[in-house]
C-alpha cells in the first residue's frame, strides 16, 4: 500500500489510525479510547459515541482488533479491544501513509512540523 498513491481510505480513515495507535500498546475499552483521543489531542479531536463504536466494530469485523469482555473485581464488565497481528500490519502501513501525506502537505504549504 505504501507504494500506492494516497488512497481514499487515508482521507476519511483517521479514526482507524487513532484507534489502532491507542490499542497498540495495551488493550483498552471504548470509553478509555474516546477519553484518550480527547486528552491527547487536547480537546481538538472528539469522537461521538455514534461514530466511535461503529468504527470499533468495523475494525473488529475486519479482524484488526479483537474485543473481549473482561470482568474485574468490584467493577462492571467492560469490553476491551486489543490489536491483532493483522491490525499491527495495517497500523504500520497507515502510519507510513500518514507520514507521506503530512510530508506532501508540508512541501506544498511550507508549514513546518516540529
Amino acid at each position, binding site marked *: 500500500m505504501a507504494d500506492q498513491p494516497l488512497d481514499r481510505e487515508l482521507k476519511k480513515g483517521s479514526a482507524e489510525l487513532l484507534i489502532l495507535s491507542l490499542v497498540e500498546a495495551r488493550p483498552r*475499552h*471504548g*470509553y478509555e479510547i*474516546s*477519553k484518550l483521543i480527547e486528552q491527547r489531542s487536547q480537546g481538538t479531536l472528539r469522537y*461521538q*459515541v*455514534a*461514530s466511535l*463504536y*461503529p468504527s470499533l*466494530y*468495523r475494525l*473488529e*469485523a475486519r*479482524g484488526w482488533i*479483537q*474485543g*473481549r*469482555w473482561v470482568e474485574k473485581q468490584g467493577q*462492571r*464488565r*467492560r*469490553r476491551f479491544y486489543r490489536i*491483532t497481528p493483522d491490525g499491527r500490519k495495517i497500523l504500520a502501513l497507515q502510519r507510513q501513509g500518514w507520514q507521506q501525506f503530512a510530508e506532501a502537505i508540508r512541501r506544498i504549504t511550507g508549514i513546518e512540523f516540529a
Partner: protein
Amino acid sequence: MPDWKQIVRGRLAGLTLDGARESEIVDELAQHLEDRCQALRSSGIPEAQATRQAIDELTGGERLAEELRKIRRPPPAEPMGIPRNRGGIMTGFIPDLRVALRNMRTKLSFTLMVTGMLALGIAGNAAIFSIFNSLFLRSLPFAEPAQLIDLDETAPKWNLKYVGVSNPDFFVWRKNNATFDGMAFFTQDSFNLSDRGNVQRVLGGNVTYDLLPVLGLKPVLGRNFLPEEDRPGGAKVVMLGYNLWQRMFQGDRNILGRVLQLDDESYTVVGVLPREAVLPDRADLWTPLAVDGDPKNSNGWYLSGIGRLKHGVSMDQARADLLRVHKNMIQQGQKVNEITSPVLTDLRERYLGDFRSVSHILLGGVAVVLLIACVNITALMLVRGSARARELAIRTAIGASRNRIIRQLLTENVVLALAGGIVGILLGAAALRAMISLMPPNTLPSWIVFSMDARFALFCVAITGAAALLSGMAPALQASRIDTRSALQDAGVRTTLSRGRRFTLASLVVFEISLALILSIGAGLLVQAFRKVLSVDPGFRPENVLVYSVNLPTHKYKKPEERVNFFENLANRMRALPGVKSAGVTSAPPLGGHWGNFWEAEGAKPLGPNDKNPVVLQIVATPGYFDAIGMTFLAGRPFRDDEADLKYTRSAVVNETFAKYYWPGQSPIGKHIRYQGNTGAWVTVVGLVRDEKHYGLDQDMKPSVIIPLRGFPRSGMSIVMRTAMEPESLVAPARNVLREIDADLPMFAVRTMTERLGQSIWARRAYSWLFAVFAGVAVILAAAGIYGVVSYAVSQRTQEIGIRMALGAQPRQVLGQTLGAGMIVVSIGVIVGLAGSLAAVRLLQSLLFGVSPRDPLIFGAVILGVAAVGLLANFIPARRAASVDPMHALHFE
C-alpha cells in the same frame, strides 16, 4: 443511578439486530455512558447534570443504529468459553473438541452406545473391505499387470468353459498374433525332488522359456531358460522357486550348476525365480515345457496361457485377433479347432472371479449394517437433540449462530465417529485375523495376501467420516433450527413431540426395520441354500476315510505291469493295517480333479457337427475303491480284477448322469461303450453307481466312467482307506508301509475325506454365516433403535398419559394405544422392507443353489421374527407407559 441500558435501548429503538448482538452493544454503550457520567461527576458536576450531559452524547442514535446495522461483527464466542475463530481451520476446532469431549464424558452411556454401534458397523466394513481389497484391488505382483491377460480355450460343445490350450494351438497363436508383446504357457506338475538323500514332493511348473519375461520378471540368481532348452530333447534344467531355494538350500548362492534329482532324473539348476513368480500357483520350481507345435504331437488341451497385450490394444481387439489366427488354422486342416476357440479373461478375474459376486454381496451387507447403525445414531441424536434444546437455546440466546451450533454438533459427531472408528477398526482387524485363521489352506492363490495397506487405511478414514456426516447432519440441522424463545420457555416442561419430529423419528424407524428385514431375508435364503447343499447326497460316505497320493517316477517304474503291481500291492498292504476296513486306489478321489475323455455308446446314433458331446469324467480305479470310498451301486456290481489287462478292458462302471445321457429310461447294465472314434473293442457296463459329487456338493455332475487300473495303468494315483478309527491315526502307519515298499516315494496330499468336503464348501459356509451374523447385528440394532425412540416418546408423554389416566383411562388402554402406534410403524417398515427384499434377492440368485429367491417359508419366518422383535422393543416402553402413576406424572411440574 439511571438504568443506562434502558436509556440506550430507548435511543437505539429500531436497531433490529439479532438478539445476542443487540444486547452486547447495549451493554457496551451503557457502560460507556456510565463511565462518562462518573467522570463528569468526579469533575464536580452535579449528578443530574452529569447524567443529562452523558445522555446527550448519545445524539444521533438513529445514525448509530444505521451504522451498526452495516457492520457484521463476528459472533462473540466468549459466552461459550470459546475464543473467536481467527480464520484458521484449527483455531475453532480445539475448543469445539474440548466441549465435545466434555459432553461425551458427562453423557457416558450415550457415548458408549453410539461408539459401540458405530464400532460394530465399521468393524464389519473394515474386515470385509480388507478381504475385498486383498482379492480385487491390490495390484498383481507383476510388471504392468493390467497388460496381462489369461489365455485359454473354451469348448461349449463339450460342456466345458475352459479346456486349456493345446500345444499346436499355442505355437501358432504365439507366432501369428498381432496384438501381444508376448505369450507364455505353462502347466502344473509335481515332482519327487531328491538332493543328497533328502526326498520331498514338490509342486512345480512346466513352463515355456518366455514365461518370466512375459510376466515382466527377472531371475534373482542365474539365468532364465534358453529357447533351445524348451524343445523336446532339450537340456534338463530347472529354476528353483524363491521359497524352495530358501527352505531347502538356505538361500545358497552357489546353487547354480548343482544337479538335483527330479523323479529320478538329473536336472541342472540354472537360476532362482523371484518371489513374484507365482505361476503356476504354489510351484516350487520350474522346468521347461519342452514340447513342439506339431499337430501330430498334440498332448490335448492342458496348458494355461498368459499374454502381455501390446500397449493401446484392447481386450476385444486381442480377442478378435486370436480368433482370426485360430480360425485360419481350420483352413489349414486343423479340424479340431472347430470345437475349441480362444478365450481371453482378465487375469485376476480368471482366478478370483468366483469370489467377486460374493464379495460384493458381503460388502453390501456390511454397508447396510453400518447404515442402520448411522440411522440409529441419527434417531438417538434427534432424541437427545430435543433433550438438549434448552442448552442449545441458551447458546443461541447468548449469541451462538446457527453455523456455530452446527459446527459444534458436528464436531461432537466427528469425535464420536472417530472413537467408533478406532474401536471398529481394531475389532475389524481382529475379526479379519479370525476369518483368515479359519480359512482352510490352498483355497486361494498363494499370491493373495491379507494385510492392511494404505487403501485400507483410506477406506477406514472415509467410512468413519461418512458415518459422522450421515449420523450427524440431520440432528445438527434440526437442533440449529431451534426457536430460542419457545425452547427456553418449554425447556423445563415435558411436552409431547412436535408432529414434524415425530414423523422424522418414525421414518427413521421404518427405514431401519426395512433394511434389517432385507438383510435378514437375504441371510435366511443364503443359510437355507447352505443347508440344502449340506443335505445333498455326496454319492459316497466321507466319514472315516483317509486319502493320500503317490506318484511313481516313470524311469523307475517303466513297465505298466510294475505300476499296477505297485499300487495293488500298496492297497493290499494298507488293507492289512489294523483299523483299516477297506482300501482301494483311484486316479481321482471325489474333489480330486478332472480328467476328461470322450466316450460313445453302442447303438447311439453318430454325433452331428452341432450335437452336444459332453466330456466324460474318466476315473481309473481298483475294484476295492468302490467300497473304500463308499459308493452306492444302483444296479450291477464293481468290475473284477480279472476283467481287464493291458490289452483288453472288458468291463466298466458308469454313473447316473452317464446312464441318463446315453440311455435315458433304460438300464445301462450290459450295454457297451468305447472311446469316441475308437474302432477297438467295446467295454461292457457292469455297474451303475449313484453320482459321486466329484466337483463339489453344489456343483453339477458330469457323466462319468470308472475303468479298471489294470487296463489303464497310471503312475500317479491316490490311495483311499476306510478306517474303523480316527483316520488321522493311520497316517503314520501308512507312511511306514510306503517307505518299506519304496523309501524314495513321498506321500502327499494326505487328507481325510471329511476335510476335503469341508474345504470344498468352505467359502459357501463362510459367506452364508457371515451374512447371517450381519443380519443378526442389523436386527439387534433396529430393535435398539425402536426401543430408544419409543422409550423417548413415552417419557415425553408421561404427563399426557398421567392426565389421561387421571381422567379414567385404563392401563390396558394406554398399553394398547402405545403398542398400537408403535406396531403401525413396525408394520410399515416390514412392508417397505418386503418390497425392497423382492428387488434385492435377485442379486443373490446365483448363490441360492435352487432355493427360490421368494421362498415363502423364509419370507414368512423372517417377517414374523422381525415383527416379534419389533413388538418386544415396543412392549417394554409401552408397559412403562401403562404403569405411569397419574399423581406422580402430574407432580412433575
